[in-house]
């Protein structure tokens, strides 16, 4: 049940793009064609899962050493280094995969969804008012954090693919000049977000 709760919450009811508004820049920038949308989404998912695996234990170390305030510097450095290594690795061992998603890797360093996942799962910003690492009624430990990152990434991939499909059709519309491009994309995203809002009514009994 916890698995289902985290899965549905991460991918649907609190989808990174439509309900939490993380990662809007690649969502708007790379969603012009379905092929590039899939590549970008897959690359983001891979980086999210690996980054969570690395930053979760590192944050525990920072807490133990009483330097938790360094978390922003450490997280962004882990993500930047990870993206660089992954790019080199894929380029070396699988050129077809590199052509499909490797070219989007350098853009991921500044994708706020990846840093947001690291912050949420490690609960780095817990204050007196709220705790962040509770998703779908489940408190995220190391294992659940990885599940959350995986399905959050897949939710992002899904958002990208839906949007790119819509945009390929929107481009054929005869719109007023001021609505072309970003404005109509935003308004379309709002209507998709309304559809995703329905998932928030699912209750897991937690």
């Amino acid at each position, binding site marked *: 049940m916890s698995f289902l709760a985290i899965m549905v919450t991460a991918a649907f009811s609190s989808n990174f793009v439509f309900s939490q508004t993380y990662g809007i*820049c690649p969502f708007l920038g790379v969603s012009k064609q379905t092929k590039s949308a899939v590549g970008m989404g897959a690359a983001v998912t891979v980086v999210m899962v690996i980054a969570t695996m690395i930053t979760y234990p590192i944050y525990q170390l920072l807490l133990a050493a009483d330097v938790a305030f360094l978390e922003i510097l450490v997280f962004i450095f882990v993500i930047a280094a990870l993206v660089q290594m992954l790019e080199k690795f894929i380029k070396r061992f699988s050129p077809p995969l590199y052509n499909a998603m490797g070219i989007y890797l350098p853009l991921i360093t500044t994708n706020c969804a990846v840093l947001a996942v690291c912050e949420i799962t490690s609960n780095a910003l817990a204050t007196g008012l709220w705790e962040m690492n509770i998703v779908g009624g489940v408190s995220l430990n190391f294992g659940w954090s990885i599940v959350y990152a995986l399905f959050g990434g897949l939710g992002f991939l899904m958002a990208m693919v839906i949007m790119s499909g819509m945009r390929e059709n929107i481009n054929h519309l005869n719109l007023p000049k001021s609505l072309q491009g970003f404005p109509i994309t935003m308004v379309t995203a709002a209507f998709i977000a309304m559809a995703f809002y329905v998932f928030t009514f699912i209750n897991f009994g937690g």
Partner: protein
Amino acid sequence: MSKNKYGTIMMNGMIFNNPTFMLVLGTCPTLAMTTSAISAFGMGVSVLIVLTLSNIIISALRKVIPNAVRIPSYIVVIATLVTVLKLFLDKMIPSLYDMMGTFLPLIVVNCLILGRAEAFASKNGVIESALDGIANGAGFTVALVFMGIIREFLGAGSFFGIEILGGFEISFFTTPMGAFIVYGLCIAGFVAVMESVRRRSRIKKTKLLNDQPDLLEEKEAA
């Protein structure tokens, strides 16, 4: 002449290349933090401060930083500034700290800040870069507060936290869905206004050309 250059930097940052409405940069905090005018103002000023300081530091170090590692160097500068800002807000303005949540550390990956570092501060002097940071940050803040006022008025019936519509509210506008719609329509409106201003100035120019051709040539030469 040099005064004119500073004026151009200011006008470019605030209006002609407005980061929010013309370039559509830094969209995540724009959508998330404009639920109320106050949180929009807090986010805008935070970005203004980080952007100005990072522009100053990066342009001062632009001859020291090797070209191959410039992006990681910029990220270290920005991340340090954001860490300082986070500690400051946590101690001094805890209500704003709670309001901003994850979007406070996410200032690090705001494409506006890295974009200005790469496009402007790495090529220009300290004073120009500081001014560019202030102009872009101010453009960002004004745009965010504008959207914040619209969304707060429609979504909560209030203006900067002061209730004016007496309980009337369309809470749709405080959700992310409302954010997407308001942002999209704001960009469309801004582009439409800019287009009409540009067209009007072009008509004026042609009229001027027909009436007094010498005068315009003089103006353009100057």
